[in-house]
């Protein structure tokens, strides 16, 4: 029985710094430019922290950047319009669906031992793993048949905290 496959990072609060999404350290590389998602593309190995969950998008009213008919400067100032946000489980929380302690008794992993691929001789090529690409480009793999027991691995890569859950 699978519970879903998720890798999460850090703890953030939307707009907590008052600067809006995408301004956290390690976040989006580059500054917003005309073209809605262009600024979300980042160079490897940096991995943005889930820019699609941002609640705003930057749009430009510049009709055609290559036009020789220069638009008044005011019309090229990017405007921020809200994008619809997906509801979270917290938004729709119903206590009837919560059963604490059910299924507990699993032992989570804290900073588990990670070994080179060549040493994992017990792992068959057909086994399913969850792969993580950290912000610093390093990679980690978690075999599902182990994570189906532990459910949680807390780990640090390149000084940043990651949470791998199953």
């Amino acid at each position: 029985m699978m519970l879903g496959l998720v890798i999460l990072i850090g703890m953030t609060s939307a707009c907590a710094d008052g600067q809006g999404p995408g301004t956290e350290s390690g976040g989006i590389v580059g500054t917003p430019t005309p073209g809605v998602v262009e600024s979300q593309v980042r160079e490897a190995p940096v991995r943005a922290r889930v820019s699609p969950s941002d609640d705003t998008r930057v749009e430009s009213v510049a009709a055609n950047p290559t036009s020789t008919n220069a638009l008044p400067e005011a019309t090229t100032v990017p405007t921020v319009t809200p994008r619809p946000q997906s509801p979270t489980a917290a938004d729709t929380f119903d206590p009837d669906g919560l059963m604490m302690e059910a299924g507990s008794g699993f032992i989570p992993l804290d900073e588990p031992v990670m070994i080179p691929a060549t040493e994992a001789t017990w792992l068959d090529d057909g086994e399913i793993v969850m792969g993580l690409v950290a912000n610093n480009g390093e990679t980690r793999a978690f075999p599902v048949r182990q994570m189906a027991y532990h459910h949680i691995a807390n780990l640090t890569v390149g000084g940043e905290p990651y949470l791998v859950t199953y």
Partner: protein
Amino acid sequence: MAGLYNGLFVMRDRQTGSVWTHYDGSILQGPLAGQGVKLEILPAYHTTWGDWRTANPDTLVLDWYPEFKDNYRQGRFEIGRAGLRPEFQRTLLNWDDRLPENELVLGVNHYGEQRAYVLGELGGGPVIIADELGGDQIAIFADPGELYALAFVAVREGEVLIFSVQDGVIIDQTGAEWDMQGRALTGPYSGAVLPFATSFVSEWYGWSAYFPETTIYGR
């Protein structure tokens, strides 16, 4: 693992005892609830070990802990096998019979819109599905035979990238090559990674319980 909510695992942090769901990183109960605090979901590359280590030869992998060997599944873990344990079912707030409960889907949650892509209906080898979700052009990068799929935003500099697979290689309309992790290998964007559209592989019952409004690709 602290319990279950809506058929899925919830966890507690040790500092505050707040209860979190890993399905979207939000907090259901406890001192941190109601403050908009949220963990951010990163891409989880759900695939075979052979595929992963070939694409990422420098990867490290979780060590084998002999003290838990009796708790680990033997052999290849059977993902998506039928059945739901009663305690999971009891906590479900929504039951959706559009698909079998254990059908493996890639769930994509992008700017207020959710869609499920049935892995078993996407084909055998590497495949790219172009779609529109949450107002963006997205691309599903999938290798269903490896149980791999993730979604990315398929736009660069205002231009929609159109991907195809030729002889097992992903290329865009300019002929530039990309890998399964959404990274450009050649061409003007070489080294760039497409923006992730929040997505992960899950069983249908959980996806549809958390996102009752979800659509299903192709239906």
